[in-house]
Each structure stands twice: as structure tokens, then as C-alpha cells.
């Protein structure tokens, strides 16, 4: 399956393997990391960003593609929606059917609220399902929530909101307990001790996993729980705009049936935006590891209604996306491959960096190698080697099949046996570090009764996220949002509903001289050949 030049390079990787395995590559100093990021991380490429012209974050930067959506009008601008005859009337409306949305719905239901989920694809069609490597929690004797805080705070360049990060680390062990009691099958030793490994930038082995189907195992369990509880899930139905009332509170959402094109109204006392990420916007032309619906819809909905964003200009490129073969270009190769011992190696067989630097540093170093002629040419660009046969040497024969079966299967589909040969990787657009700003209880500060959970939140991780802290945040902040929304709903009295903010936004756009012809949110990427 490999090309001639790849086979030539593999010989060098094999030749240097024994010597490389004798020494652990040096970790970079803080100064080296800072210089590398400035020179090679896509967040530092000015041409990938535009200034936001209107709204709460006016004057700040956003990726071009996100700015374009923020500068677009609502698809409801010229529609006449009757808000007085809602199809649904609930205490808690959850927008999004991923891990955060499902966790929120379970906790809201547990608290006795009348809760429903709307999702534009199916429940579980979400980045949660695709998270492979694991979930962090400081629950071993040599570890503590304070150590977890330090790792995440430093890894995120000291920009995380302390009140959010505190919640993340302090509630992590309980998140693991909750999932385990729901029936998630974590990897365990015979005595019940959870098997934990390192992730990039962790100082303790606190990565809990379910083979390399960690997110899938969590998602299918919480989805099953949602269904068992008979919580209404309206699939193939997008929220296309928030509804507010005459007191400025959120009052529900306008929904679009993705199959029939009908609009529906959901009235709600509280709304939780759990719409996930933005990989399908393909910032700076990158491929993505994200699911089909990752188009930043919640950010657009919230922003148009007046909720500010935070760190919308920081994006996570996962260092190891598939660079070859082209059929799976951009797919995630879990960080766990490196946790299990595989090194990153350039064209000449050199281990040019420590394999477990933080993701932004690791990605930048790969981009640097490829920019300086140290990458291996591929039909779609270039990449560096991830020396997977090392895993079998270190952990014994069968380790790959036992610990990372999804990776093995994905490559075997294309005739590549990662137990015997290394694989080619290049950074892939993976995670939106920023999002809507919330306080410690999950509420937006600008719009009463509007909450956000999961990847749509900004500020939990700062300007870079550590592996395993996202599966954690969707559970911690999802659960919290569900509890908080259910409690809040008891005290809410709704006024007269309106969509006035859509008209006001249109006016602002006009005054700023912006005349984007498209509408937002995007809902689905345009992949059909005639739409591109």
C-alpha cells in the first residue's frame, strides 16, 4: 500500500528504532515551546483570522470561517414564525445530542424536570462518540485534583477560567463514579484498580479508558440511559434560533425539521446549548477528526442572541491525524498510541521531539518538520511517522489489538498493519478551545436562563486542552447544566416571546456594511460536489 518513497523512509525508521528506544527524547523548555508555537502553530497565522465586526466580541479575532457565520443573517429573517403556538413546551430544552446534552438531560430528568433533547442528526452523532483515548480524573493515591489543575492550567497557557477549571478537576472523580455506576466498562486491573496512562502534558497517569472506544462506550451508555428514561429526543431537528421574551430571558428555540424543511417552536423555561464543536468549518483548510455536524451552530445561536464568546480564536489541531491513506485523511489517531510508547519520527528516522508534549506543541513540531523537508511526501501533502511497532516491542505482542483495536481495524481496512509498520500522521482540526462564556454554574452571564455545556463552552481549558479533559468536561458540565437548569426552571415565569434580536442583529450587520449572502448557523457542511 505504501509508495516507493515511503518504503525507503520506513527502512530508516526501522534502522534507528533500537537506538531510539534506549533514550527518552528530551522535553522542550518553556522558551523553546513558546518559540515553536509562534513560528508554526496555525493560531498564529494572521491570514487565517478576521476581525469580528459586530456583537459582544466586536474588534476581536475569529477564524475566517467562523467570522463569516457571525457576519451572516438568520435564516428566519424573512420568515413569519408563530411563537404563540409551540409544538413543545418544556422546563429544560437541551440543544444537541452528544455527551454533554445526554448527561444534562439525564440529570434534569433525575431532578424531576420536564426535559427534551433536539438534535440535528441522531442522538450520539457527536464528537463524544469519536473520542478514543480516554478521560482524566485525579483518583489515584499519587495524584490530586490540585495536580490535575496545575497540568491543565499550564497546558492551557494559564488562560483557563479558575472557577471553571476548579469544577472540572474537583468533580472529575465523581464523573468517573457516575459513569461506572451507569455501566461504562472502564479498563481495570483484576483488583478493580482502573488502568490509567499518561496523556500529553499530564504529570500523573490519570487517563482512564475503555480500550480506544472510550467516547463511544460513554456515549452509548448515556444514550441508552436517556432512552430508558423515555426522555423525548427529537432527531433530525436543528435549533436555528433562540427565542427570548420581553424580559430578555431565553424562552425556547425555533427548530427546523432537517428532512421536511418545516419550522417548529419549542417553548422552554431554560435552554442548554450543547451543540459541540466546529471541525467541519475546516479552518485554514485543515481536515478534521470531527463528526459531520460539527459546524459551531450553538456559538452562532448564542452570539446572535447577545451572549459573548471567549477564546474563539484558539483552535486545537490534534497532532496525529491520518496523513495516509487518503480515504481516511484527517481521521483521528488517538494520543493513546503515544501513551503506549510510539514515538514521532521524521523522514530520516529521527525522534525529533518528545512524543507526549501538549497537543499544540506536538502539532507545531510536526508542521515544522514537514515545512523543513523532514516530512514524508503523501498524495495529499506530507506527514511524519508514528512508530507503532514500538508498542508491541514495549508492551508485548497483542498489545495493539487489546488496547487500540479501533486503530488497528481502521488501518487494516486499507492493508496497513500498524503492528508491523509505522503509520503516517499530520495535524487534524480537532477541538474548539473557545466558545460561549459561562459562569461556574453553567449559565451565560448575558442571557438569563441560558446555559452552555460541553465543547460549545469557552474558558474551561484556556488556550489549549489536554487529552482526556474534554470527555471529562462534557460529563462534569453536562451534569451540572442539567441540575442547574432543572432547579432554575422552577422559578422562571416566561413573558411574551419574540425574535426581535434577529432584526436587531440584521440592522447591526447593515450598519457595519456587511452583506454576507449566506445564512447561519450552517447546520451541515457543503460537501456535495455542486455545493462546494
Amino acid at each position: 500500500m505504501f509508495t516507493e518513497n515511503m518504503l525507503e523512509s520506513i527502512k530508516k525508521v526501522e534502522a534507528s528504532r533500537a537506538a531510539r528506544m534506549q533514550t527518552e527524547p528530551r522535553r522542550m523548555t518553556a522558551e523553546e515551546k513558546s518559540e515553536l508555537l509562534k513560528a508554526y502553530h496555525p493560531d498564529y497565522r494572521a491570514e487565517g483570522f478576521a476581525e469580528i465586526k459586530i456583537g459582544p466580541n466586536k474588534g476581536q479575532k475569529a477564524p475566517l470561517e467562523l467570522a463569516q457565520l457571525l457576519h451572516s443573517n438568520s435564516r428566519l429573517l424573512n420568515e413569519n414564525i408563530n411563537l404563540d403556538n409551540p409544538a413543545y413546551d418544556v422546563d429544560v430544552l437541551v440543544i444537541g445530542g452528544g455527551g454533554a446534552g445526554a448527561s444534562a438531560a439525564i440529570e434534569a430528568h433525575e431532578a424531576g424536570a420536564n426535559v427534551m433533547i433536539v438534535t440535528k442528526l441522531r442522538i450520539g452523532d457527536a464528537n463524544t462518540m469519536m473520542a478514543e483515548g480516554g478521560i482524566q480524573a485525579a483518583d489515584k493515591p499519587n495524584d490530586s485534583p490540585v495536580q490535575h489543575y496545575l497540568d491543565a492550567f499550564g497546558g492551557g497557557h494559564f488562560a483557563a477560567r479558575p472557577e471553571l477549571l476548579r469544577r472540572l478537576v474537583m468533580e472529575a472523580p465523581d464523573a468517573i463514579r457516575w459513569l461506572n455506576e451507569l455501566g461504562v466498562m472502564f479498563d481495570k486491573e483484576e483488583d478493580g484498580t482502573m488502568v490509567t496512562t499518561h496523556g500529553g502534558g499530564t504529570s500523573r497517569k490519570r487517563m482512564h479508558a475503555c480500550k480506544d472506544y472510550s467516547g463511544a462506550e460513554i456515549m452509548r451508555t448515556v444514550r441508552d440511559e436517556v432512552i430508558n428514561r423515555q426522555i423525548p429526543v427529537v432527531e433530525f431537528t436543528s435549533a436555528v434560533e433562540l427565542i427570548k421574551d420581553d424580559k430578555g430571558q431565553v424562552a425556547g428555540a425555533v427548530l427546523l425539521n432537517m428532512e421536511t424543511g418545516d419550522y417548529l417552536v419549542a417553548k422552554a423555561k431554560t435552554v442548554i446549548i450543547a451543540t459541540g464543536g466546529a471541525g467541519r468549518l475546516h479552518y485554514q483548510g485543515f481536515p478534521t477528526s470531527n463528526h459531520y455536524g460539527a459546524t459551531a451552530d450553538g456559538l452562532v445561536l448564542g452570539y446572535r442572541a447577545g451572549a459573548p464568546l471567549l477564546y474563539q480564536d484558539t483552535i486545537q489541531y490534534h497532532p496525529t491525524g491520518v496523513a495516509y491513506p487518503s480515504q481516511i485523511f484527517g481521521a483521528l489517531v488517538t494520543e493513546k498510541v503515544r501513551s503506549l510508547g510510539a514515538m514521532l519520527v521524521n523522514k530520516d528516522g529521527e525522534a525529533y521531539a518528545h512524543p507526549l508534549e501538549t497537543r499544540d506543541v506536538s502539532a507545531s513540531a510536526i508542521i515544522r518538520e514537514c515545512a523543513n523537508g523532514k516530512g514524508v511526501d503523501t498524495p495529499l501533502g506530507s506527514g511524519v511517522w508514528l512508530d507503532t511497532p514500538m508498542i508491541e516491542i514495549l508492551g508485548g505482542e497483542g498489545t495493539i489489538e487489546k488496547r487500540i483495536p479501533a486503530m488497528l481495524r481502521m488501518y487494516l481496512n486499507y492493508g496497513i498493519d500498524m503492528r508491523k509498520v509505522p503509520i503516517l500522521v499530520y495535524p487534524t482540526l480537532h477541538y474548539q478551545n473557545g466558545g460561549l462564556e459561562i459562569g461556574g454554574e453553567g449559565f451565560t452571564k448575558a442571557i438569563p436562563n441560558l446555559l452552555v455545556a460541553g465543547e460549545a463552552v469557552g474558558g474551561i481549558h484556556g488556550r489549549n486542552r489536554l487529552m482526556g479533559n474534554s470527555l471529562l468536561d462534557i460529563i462534569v458540565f453536562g451534569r451540572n447544566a442539567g441540575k442547574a437548569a432543572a432547579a432554575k426552571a422552577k422559578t422562571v415565569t416566561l413573558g411574551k416571546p419574540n425574535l426581535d434580536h434577529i432584526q436587531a442583529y440584521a440592522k447591526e450587520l447593515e450598519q457595519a456594511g456587511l452583506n454576507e449572502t449566506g445564512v447561519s448557523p450552517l447546520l451541515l457542511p457543503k460537501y456535495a460536489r455542486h455545493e462546494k
Partner: protein
Amino acid sequence: MENLVNVYFFGKRYQVPGDLTIMTAMEYAGYTLTRGCGCRHGFCGACATIYRIKGCNELKTCLACQTQVQEGMYIASIPFFPTDKRAYEIKDLKPNQQVMMELYPEIYSCIGCNACTKACTQSLNVMQYIAYAQRGELEKCAEESFDCVSCGCCSVRCPAEISHPMVGLLARRLVGKYVAPESAHVYDRVGEINRGEYDALIEQVMQKPISEMQELYNTRDIEK
């Protein structure tokens, strides 16, 4: 000129580049997907697909996002399949054979045809995990079914009308909750946190100036 192949979506012929997957070939042909497309990387099971190569008798099942097109493929996606999930309260169940008998009695109608295993897009031994479920060997059932993505191809082909993914899911939840050994260290830490044992420490670290945090971070010891 790139290598083009002939494929047939729902019986209609399109010429598409031969290095595409079924999913990207549909988009190349002009389809805007809503159903039958989820994670696009082989984890969610949204894109269950059935196909036959022109001139061959064999009917195959696959995930559209993980399968390369071939010349003469007749392709139909399965946008939805009504698998039959039974509702239960996990906390009221016991991890035994009785549970399977009560919730999924149809597994005992298995005729051993192995069509489920043949249809599995993940190459799992589906009939074997159903056999484990019949015998109440929940751990084995959970392990054997672990990589299931619930695409439902097995259930489409099953003459006994079993909803295999739901059986595996139940077994895994029972094993995760009841059968697997309890993790004492998780409960210990939750208890310590609930008793407030970390409150002062975390408060302290939250108040530290950035320069001090940088120093702490850059000099922290890293477990080998």
C-alpha cells in the same frame, strides 16, 4: 485523468474516482447527506450500507465511510433500521441469565445461521456473543461485543429477528456496573473531595499569581 469506476446508487449509475469511499463518492455524485452520515470515521454506525458487485451473487454489508468504492458496486444505504430496544432501569436489574431471558427472549430463537457474523461491519463474532448472552455469560458477551458500533447490519440479516446490538449493550452495562470489580480508589477520592479535604488547597492554587503558577508548572515532577 484519474481512475474512474462505475457505481450504482439505488440503481442509478455514476462515474466516480476509484479512490473514494462510498460516502465521499455519494457526495461526489451530488448527494447532500442528512441521513446515513454521522461521524464519518467508523465509530457511530450511521452509514450502514448494503451492496452487491454486478455479476456476483453475494450480498455484502459495510459502513459507507470506511469502504472504498469498486467497479460495478450496486449500493443502497440503510438510513434507519428499527432495532428493538427494551426499556429497563439498570439499577433494578441483576447480572444474570434471567435478565436476558426476560428482556430479549428472542435470542433463544437463534437458528445458528451465522448471517449476523457475516454481516458485521466490525468483523465481530456476533453469533458467538449472542450465544454467550443465551448462557448468561455476560462478561464474555460484553467483551466479544465491545467494538460494536450499532450499525444494525446484523439485525437486518437475522431470520430470528434479534436486535443484536441491544443485547450486547445490555451485557456491557451489566458488566460495567455489577460484574467488573469495584474501583475503591475512585470512591476514596470522591469521599475525600466531598469531605472538603481539597478545598483549601485548590483555593490556594487558584489565588496564586501567574508567575508563580508558571514556575510550579515548569518544575513539576512527571511520573515515569
